[in-house]
């Protein structure tokens, strides 16, 4: 029997699995498919809005937590959050993450809006707009869904907290291809891994350079060797180069996934992707096994501890039926924060706050799931990531921070109990 079974292979699941493994536990990581990493920009956003723009997450968090006592950060605590970020930074070798919990960088998004992030891949960091600057935004003609003129115009109009000015212009280049009418971001990333392609692109960009502009490109600068590609392009152009996250699938997200997954497997961790957890066997207040839909059979995966890292509504971990009934699909845990009948569930417009989006699993300070009366449901289950109740991560820009720190803290809970 394995010591730990983690269900879900996004940020929170990968973190919990790696931390438990580092502590010497045998861990299996099980997931329905790959997921959140490939859909997210690969940055670690800790707290971007609370609700005003946050310049320093570490300074803003105590007050934010006071004002949101049901928020996951209130359970996790600033201390565990800071330690998890430090731990995360140490996972990386050549391709590193930069930044800290003390200050947010302001990075351009795929449409040139501005997003606060605490930790970012090195290759994104020169896109920080806090101190203004001059930018050349480069588009690749065969890459759909990235429009350099849109990005340039929007960041030129952006308001920085310091009031520093931003100038930006756009250029579209036509990299050498094999005649394809369009190429995905990943296809481009694979080509950037080849030095000849990088040289050809550098030459084309070089012809457009003017003054001391930093150069921004869609986040496709290599998938196998991103550090070498990024530094190579900086050297060739003699100036800072940065990546701008593009639409999914996200190349920086794939790098993150591959790096963490490879570390986990190299340490003897077992990964089972493509198998959905559909239920659990229990004995009193303990779960004895998670039931998994594998080919031809429902297979029990017994373990000593279980980590629920399946995500929220978006990933199908929590499901709402036609009669508004809400259920968590692996352990059938009580879902807290679902607006009562007659109350508003959704705001009127897409980008409004939606009361339902705060629904999730309520936990205690050890991240054990709680029922409506505040009693622990299971003694050997911890809940992490997007299935936790109390946050509206996409508005707060707190998703990866919650996932990383809760995964980290769940591992601490398990290791403490185990030893």
């Amino acid at each position, binding site marked *: *029997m*394995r010591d730990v079974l983690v269900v879900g292979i996004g940020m929170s699941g990968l973190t919990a699995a790696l931390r438990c493994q580092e502590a010497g536990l045998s861990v*299996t990581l*099980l997931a*329905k*498919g*790959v*997921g959140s990493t*490939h*859909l997210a920009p690969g940055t670690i956003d800790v707290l971007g809005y609370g609700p005003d723009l946050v310049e320093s997450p570490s300074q803003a968090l105590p007050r934010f937590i006071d004002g949101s006592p049901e928020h996951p950060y209130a359970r996790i605590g600033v201390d565990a959050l800071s330690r998890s970020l430090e731990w995360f930074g140490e996972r990386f070798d050549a391709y590193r993450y930069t930044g800290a919990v003390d200050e947010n960088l302001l990075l351009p998004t795929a449409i040139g809006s501005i997003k606060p992030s605490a930790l970012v891949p090195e290759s994104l960091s020169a896109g920080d707009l806090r101190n203004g600057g001059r930018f050349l935004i480069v588009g690749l003609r065969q890459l759909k869904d990235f429009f350099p003129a849109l990005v340039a115009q929007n960041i030129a109009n952006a308001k920085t907290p310091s009031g520093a000015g931003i100038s930006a212009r756009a250029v579209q280049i036509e990299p050498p291809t*094999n*005649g*394809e009418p369009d190429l*995905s971001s*990943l*296809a481009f990333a*694979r080509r950037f891994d080849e030095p000849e392609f990088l040289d050809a692109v550098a030459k084309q960009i070089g012809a457009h350079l003017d003054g001391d502009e930093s150069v921004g490109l869609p986040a496709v600068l290599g998938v196998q060797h991103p550090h070498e590609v990024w530094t190579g392009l900086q050297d060739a152009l003699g100036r800072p180069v940065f990546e701008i996250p593009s639409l*999914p*699938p996200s190349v920086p997200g*794939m790098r993150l996934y591959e790096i963490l997954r*490879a570390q986990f*497997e190299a340490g*003897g961790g*077992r*990964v*089972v*992707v*493509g*198998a*959905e957890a559909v239920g659990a066997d229990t004995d009193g207040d303990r779960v004895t096994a998670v039931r*998994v*839909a*594998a*080919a*031809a*059979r429902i*297979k029990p995966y*017994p373990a000593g501890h279980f980590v629920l890292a399946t995500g929220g509504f978006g*990933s*199908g971990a929590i499901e709402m039926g036609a009669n508004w009934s809400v259920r968590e699909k692996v352990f059938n845990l009580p879902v807290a924060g679902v607006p009562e009948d007659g109350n508003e569930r959704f705001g009127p417009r897409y980008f409004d706050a939606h009361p339902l989006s705060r629904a999730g699993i309520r936990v205690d300070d050890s991240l054990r799931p709680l029922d409506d009366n505040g009693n622990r449901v299971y003694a050997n289950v911890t809940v992490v990531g997007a299935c936790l109740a109390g946050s509206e991560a996409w508005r707060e820009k707190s998703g990866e921070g919650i996932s990383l720190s809760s995964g980290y803290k769940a591992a601490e809970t398990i290791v403490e109990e185990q030893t």
Partner: protein
Amino acid sequence: MIEDLIRGSLDHCIKCTICESHCPVSRATPLFPGPKYVGPQAERFRTGDTSPDDSLDYCSGCGICTHVCPQGVKVAEINSRARRTLKESKGIRLRDKVIARPSLSAKLATPVAPVANWTLRSKPIRAAIETTAGVDRRAPLPTFAGRTFQKWARKHEGPKLGRSVVYFHGCSANWFEPDLGAKTVAVLEHNGFNVIVPKGQDCCGLPLQSNGLFDDATGYVNRLVAKLAPYAREGYDIVATSTSCGLMLKREAHEILGMESDDLRVVSERMYDICEFLLDLHDRGELKTEMAPLSLKVPYHVPCQQRGHEMGKPALGLFGLIPGLEVVDTQRTCCGIAGTYGLKKEKYDIAMEVGRSLFEDITGMEPELSVCDSETCRWQIEHATEIPSVHPIELLHRSYGL
């Protein structure tokens, strides 16, 4: 009905393109636009007997799209079913009908194996086959062993042990790699199993299914499960060393051919990949772990069809029990062969391009051998790397000192 579940899953597609980012074929050739395009998107335009999208024929059926989909869309299954319609509307080539019947060819060739093998190694003859039948002259065809595993099993007298397990050997172990069959029996017997080898096991029909010949495939499945079902009903587990054939009986006959028979259901429920079976034993503390060191560093390739079992990579867990053995998981998606895909003249180069990075990883390590669970993948890898490729059982057999 299963058809409705498979087709209905396309409504869960959120167009995230994770499947496209993993597809090894669209990466290798612009002729295949990717699983999302020919799968959930084109499927909306497929009605009845019409198929609007010929590029589907370049899908190799590796199945990684279904495996990685975070929304549970059965992309590969949708595409396999659509391929049948496409093939039927175009007419199925004689070549596809022949290469999809390995057991038929093997029955004819085995009595004259030296001649048959010589014929298939002869360059002029292969060139003629390529011209007339469209099987690429360079493609890796297996070598007929000239003897069968069944014949060995009939003579083999194992120790009479307490518990029994059934071995589904498939065409490859029977006709091409009978030693793998014998080693599998030895490993199971060493772990206290009486191994039952039901007589008359024929092809599982998978190559026919891959080539769109669903009715013929269904006939093969029916005949095979009729041989295995009595044992499943007795409560015996069934193990398979052929990953893809095991998967055919576990799920594909049901999900792709749409078969609902009771024989198939009981066989599915009892079917285990050999490594899955052994690792489950180990997790229950029932696998012998006294093993001799193997001072080897070997690359391991997880075959596509193994992912369809939804069981992770059990061979890695078993390799971890062998002292001194260093295994490098290549993490590559596909070797390109996909059963019969890479044999075809119009697809051979695509298949070799699909596997190129895998082959480079393997040759770069300069290993004594490489390891892979699936036979057609091993033949492709050997062909491309000129380094022997073995089933994981081979390493266990060695380490047990059997």
